[in-house]
């Protein structure tokens, strides 16, 4: 298990706090924070929950995030930038 952080500048600033399984390359826990707007607000927690167990791979993450963002309105980042913010934890 490894803990990593990343600060990613999209239209707004995204902070990622990630706990992941290095061997399996999967997400154990994730917290996404920042000065963005996300409607409805509670849907961010749903997105974080949906990412648990997912592979830290660009296509997998982007697909999962797109699915979640489809039900929300977000100002400050998009699926591509959030994907990069998460993957940036590993670099």
């Amino acid at each position, binding site marked *: 298990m490894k803990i990593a952080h990343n*600060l990613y500048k999209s239209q*707004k*600033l995204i*902070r990622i706090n990630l706990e992941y399984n290095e061997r399996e390359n999967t997400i154990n826990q994730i*917290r*996404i*924070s*920042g*000065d*963005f*707007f*996300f*409607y*409805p*607000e509670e849907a*961010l927690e749903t997105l974080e929950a949906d990412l648990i167990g997912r592979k830290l791979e660009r296509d997998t993450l982007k697909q999962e995030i797109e699915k979640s963002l489809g039900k929300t*309105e977000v*100002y400050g980042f998009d699926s591509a930038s959030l994907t990069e913010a998460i993957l940036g934890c590993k670099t």
Partner: protein
Amino acid sequence: MGKIRFSKIRTLETGYNDAALNMAIDEVMIENVQETPVLRIYGWSPVAVSIGYFQSMKEEVDLDKCNQIGVDVVRRLTGGGAVLHESELTYSFITKEYPRNIMESYAWICEAVVMSLHRMGFDARFVPLNDIVIAAKKVSGNAQTRRNGILLQHGTLLLGVDVAKMFSVLRVPSEKLRDKIIKDAKERVTSLTGTTFDELSLSLKTSFAIKFDANLVADNMSTEEINRARWLAEQKYRSKEWNFRR
């Protein structure tokens, strides 16, 4: 954008309160608003930092510094960034009827704010999503939440600005870049110098009345509203569970 009119707007001037009570009063207004929307005007005492709903208190705010200099902290119900509430007027507009499109609804309410600044001689304009600027410098930040079919938008109007103090209580992404960040912020932020809270309050109320073709009904919070707000301030907005949830 469809033309929405209100016959009345309930106006509340709730004075200067601490951060927790200020956010609690906003939440009570969401709970209680009926067909008549509410325009609330208020200030902050002591000086406070509010953080956005999705921000991390520990990562955004220097809590030791806040303790040292007596700056209050609170998490808002709305998204967006951290704000130092010192020399400013804050307003909230709470309504059941509003444009469902988020961008439209920001423009819809911010137009009334811009009108109030024009009346006072400031060449202000709305910049989507949520800013109001004068000569390309931000003078007002605004944020919304929608709960149970109710829209709340609150926003700040800077009467003065102390960028150095702001960054003394806010953490910056890179300490190495602190000086540059402060310099950049000074170039990007302005204030309504020479304007008083009361003048701005009056102009704001007038603009909301004109914008929405509404009569203003000056009111006070009811005893029930005050008690509920005090309870929410204690139980929610002063709690670690709320303020440190991210």
